[in-house]
């Protein structure tokens, strides 16, 4: 056991997204990113929205679906070492409230971005591609799946 640990939770990463205030912090973070992008004078409103969408999806992909394991040692003999954070959430139980929240939020961002870019075709292609990169790994059928062996170990 990790010395000095005050709870019997095997992997604290599974509970982090459920903690009090995490969803609010995430929403505020996205809002802050958007405001920063809107403040840059070179970007028009559609460009700022598409950039928000793309950067948010990139960040979500990297932190939830690319990085594997835990940043601390856990007493589970490495069961979570090859799992991404998304797969570790709630010990792999699907359709919990955190998972639903983090699935719906890129979709909402996509709707907002589509509206503000007036459905222009270049923006549409970019936004849709970026949404797909972040929605497809969240499907329960892809739990633990590594296509072409990318990111397996």
């Amino acid at each position, binding site marked *: 056991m990790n010395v000095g640990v005050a709870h019997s*939770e095997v992997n604290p990463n599974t509970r982090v997204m459920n903690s009090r*205030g995490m969803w609010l912090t995430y929403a505020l*973070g996205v809002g802050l990113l958007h405001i920063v992008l809107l403040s840059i004078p070179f970007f028009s409103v559609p460009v700022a929205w598409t950039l928000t969408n793309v950067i948010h999806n990139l960040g979500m992909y990297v932190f939830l679906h690319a990085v594997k394991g835990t940043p*601390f*040692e856990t007493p589970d003999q490495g069961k979570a*070492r090859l799992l991404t954070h998304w797969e570790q959430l709630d010990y792999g139980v699907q359709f919990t409230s955190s998972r639903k929240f983090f699935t719906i939020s890129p979709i909402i961002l996509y709707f907002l971005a589509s509206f503000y870019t007036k459905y222009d075709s270049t923006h549409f292609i970019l936004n849709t591609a970026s949404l797909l990169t972040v929605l497809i790994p969240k499907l329960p059928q892809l739990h633990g799946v590594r296509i072409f062996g990318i990111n397996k170990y």
Partner: protein
Amino acid sequence: VNHIVHNGGLYKRPFNEAFEETPMLVAVLTYLGYGVLTLFGYLRDFMRQWKIEKCQNATEREEQKDFVPLYQDFENFYTRNLYMRIRDSWNRPICSVPGAKVDMMERVSHDYNWTFTYTGRVIKGVINMGSYNYLGFAQKAGTCQKAAAKVLSQYGAGVCSTRQEMGNLDKHEELEKLVARFLGVESAMTYGMGFATNSMNIPALVGKGCLILSDELNHASLVLGARLSGATIRIFKHNNMQSLEKLLKDAIVHGQPRTRRPWKKILILVEGIYSMEGSIVRLPEVIALKKKYKSYLYLDEAHSIGALGPRGRGVVDYFGLNPEDVDVMMGTFTKSFGAAGGYIGGKKELIDYLRICSHSAVYATSMSPPVVEQIITSVKCIMGEDGATVGKARVQQLAENTRYFRRRLKEMGFIIYGNEDSPIVPLMLYMPAKIGAFGREMLKRNIGVVVVGFPATPIIESRARFCLSATHTKEMLDRTLKEVDEVGDLLQLKYSRHRLVPLLDRPFDETTYEETED
């Protein structure tokens, strides 16, 4: 304004426990703090990998760089990037007996805590708020020390054998009879190490086909013992009797998972005082549940023996219950008795069985004689059998200190967790930077405290933990309170909103998921 307590008829005294919820702004700022630290951690790791910054961690040898890596360096991320920054608040070397005041060796670091050098100066008289010295028996002079020195010259320091072979001294028999009389049980057995008492004896009591219901915040020794035993483990919410009752009902109605056979034994594992929360177990309700559903109770009184109760006999004495209701009473001598080791007390058949079948009894060396004498003298002192009233005075002084300290901290506006009567006082810090800042500022003002953060506690509940002692005089407590007040103003730690009606239940997420064993 009083809450209506469930099962109020079982409690003979008011049970005041409160865990004030994290304010939302503080939670958001805490997450931002960890987020910024994580981003900077990635940046520093990137710079170390591309040799822009010197890597001071242990790395693989040059010749073995092409092999499959031995360690996953992501697992060390927090240690490298967060823990190292505030590492000087832990592992501080002390060089005197850890009484109410302690001497610490001063150390400085010139490379941001990667290495420490000793300046050679000794910081004298640091007020010790971190040692588990509840009754003040960590002394280098006094009756206990004289008796222990005499036994040392008579028996020597080592026993060089296990209890079952040649290591059963008459001192051990005397100690066990005394401990059994102290607790009010039929018989007791003592072991050389408190952690080993739990981890080696739970496997002797339960096995495959049994069910263990363990509290969420149980100590690592209980968790290790439960895992080693091979029994099925189910966890109930901390001190939550509704959760425990639901688990008991489910267990009895549904039986074992696939075969639906009844469980061979159901064992409830609880602690007297939880050392990180300062909460006291709801023992009257646990005993009522145990009797109703016919299960067994294992009570770990590591922190509560000697520290609670009008006669210092632990949490059973505190609630005024019958010690025979608890099937296995376990405790350690490390905290209130100033010694080392653990004990298990219960019925004579149980203890006789443990004498034969416990791993600790068969393989571990028995307790060293001077330590045994220290325990005998301190227990006699607490019971008042040595003729003086020092023991009783200390128990009362600890209770007064606890009440005073907690009341003053609450009045100042800090968020304090736990029961009003527990000598462990967790003061909430929440943000990662404040953990390091609090430890360092208190040491600058000559007060030593213990601070804890994520992942040892939940992510938004980092805390500083004060352990009160009977030897803390009122001047020491006042001085500590004054310094905590100053540091609290400096670091803006006074988050409490002084709710009139405190939250009785610890705030927890509605549904939590457990790791499934496959």
